[in-house]
């Protein structure tokens, strides 16, 4: 085994002995074994598809379409390009709303963590944001902004900002006070304290917050697109629902889930890995 292969192994696998070592050796006999960490997830997907197919065959109802019908619908919306267009529209709205919420949350979160008075000032707003359902923000934004880009952006921002603010507060509070004392003793500039101390400490929390934020944003954007817009995945879901087309609803849901999975594995995890490279290098 070369050095790169050695490095790609998990820490527990390196130099492992006994049954764990034997199972790793067995795993390496299969082609594509480096993807071993995805196997449990793949197994879940296979079992879910098999379970659904069994249910469809047993129930034999139009309300529970079989896997083939759903796959056909997925294929149709993918090959027509409609899925890409609508997902692009929805994702763009999510990204804008998320970006707005992210900037506001980082600023307010840091201020809340650093100044108790600021935290007390914003506390009612945060509690309000956490308790008010996304549907309320959706309805209010549709009323206020009508059919415009502002509706999804503001609704998403209002929906996810409280959660993000709490994540940022938690992240700032996690900064080692000894490190902050060192920074004060050396009279580091505020910009360096932010860039070199807070930001790296915040990164794991921000990624966690971003994941939760994106999942919340998806729930908000569907409502906004159902109630106030004429395109996007939410709108398509509503159209299929109006036609009582269950396979259409499932196809759009699955396609969007796939898009979000690509975002999770392709963007979030890679970005997190790149930004916390030092942790892996320090371990090796």
């Amino acid at each position, binding site marked *: 085994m070369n050095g790169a292969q050695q490095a790609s192994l998990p820490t527990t696998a390196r130099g492992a002995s006994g049954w764990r070592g034997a199972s790793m050796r067995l795993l390496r006999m299969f082609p594509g074994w480096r993807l071993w960490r995805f196997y449990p997830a793949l197994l879940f997907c296979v079992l879910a598809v098999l379970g659904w197919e069994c249910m469809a065959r047993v129930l034999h109802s139009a309300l529970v379409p079989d896997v083939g019908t759903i796959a056909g619908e997925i294929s149709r919306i993918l090959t027509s390009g409609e899925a890409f267009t609508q997902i692009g529209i929805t994702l763009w709205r999510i990204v804008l709303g998320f970006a707005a919420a992210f900037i506001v949350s980082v600023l307010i979160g840091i201020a809340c963590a650093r100044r108790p008075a600021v935290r007390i000032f914003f506390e009612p707003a945060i509690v309000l944001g956490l308790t008010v359902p996304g549907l309320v923000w959706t309805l209010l934004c549709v009323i206020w902004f009508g059919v415009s880009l502002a509706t999804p952006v503001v609704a998403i921002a209002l929906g996810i900002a409280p959660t993000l603010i709490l994540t940022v507060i938690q992240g700032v509070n996690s900064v080692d006070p*000894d*490190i902050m*004392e*060192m920074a*004060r*003793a*050396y*009279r*580091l500039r505020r910009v*360096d304290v932010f860039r*070199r*101390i807070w930001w*790296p400490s915040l990164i794991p929390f921000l990624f966690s917050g971003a994941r939760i934020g994106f999942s919340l944003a998806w729930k908000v954007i569907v409502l906004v697109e159902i109630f106030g817009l004429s395109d996007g995945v939410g709108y398509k879901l509503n159209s299929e629902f109006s036609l009582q087309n269950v396979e259409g609803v499932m196809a759009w849901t699955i396609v969007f889930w796939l898009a979000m999975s690509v975002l999770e594995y392709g963007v979030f995890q890679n970005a997190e890995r790149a930004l*916390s490279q*030092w*942790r892996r*290098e*320090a*371990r090796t």
Partner: protein
Amino acid sequence: MSRRIRFAGVSKAYAQRAGGNRDVLRDFDFEIAAGELVAFVGPSGVGKSTLLHLAAQLDVPDRGAVTIGADGEYPGRLGIVFQQPRLLDWLTVRQNLELVLDGHDDARIDELLAIVEMKDFVDAWPRTLSGGQRQRVALARAFAVKPEVLLLDEPFSALDELTGRRLRLLLQQLWLKGRPPTGILVTHNMQEAAFLADRIVILQGHPARAVDVIDVDLPRPRSPEDECIFHIHRRVIACLSGFSQTNRLEGVS
């Protein structure tokens, strides 16, 4: 340029969990001359670290003032070494040193890391280093700022005896390089105090008072094997144990 440090009528009290305040310092007066290294020794909780924190401006006195240099003057560049290295794990050794510098100064960083024998680890992550190596980096960081004031808060107490001894020698080497800063050393290690300091202040009681000040009139570089160091060490121990009848000892060499 090193600077004088003056504690003038400094009082500091901390709230106690059981209620009320505990006076750590009351009307404490002391002056450290420019370029002098003074060690504060005494039992735990006597107020040694409080003095150091006040000098670092990490805390403010309830009464009185701690001035560095002339009154109203900018307190100057400050280097500090804590008991733990307090390095940023996500920055390399070089980046940790660059952090405290205004700009990049690769030559200075390389020179300091060479003195503390860490030049080969310039791109290493702190987590990959041993405790002694991390403390060497912390030592280099303190000198990277070209300190006018150097504060040492039990800097080698978390290290094993041999590593601590090696680092004390490195500190002496850094101290002798260029114009020495004005320093405060807080330590429980009397031999360390005797080896490094120009004066040893023995603090006792609540609020703390200087029960004895011992001048260490030894030229630098000093050797840890020097018999005079052991002599001073014994005097400090004797004083702390309450056996000392001497208020001041000068010219031990």
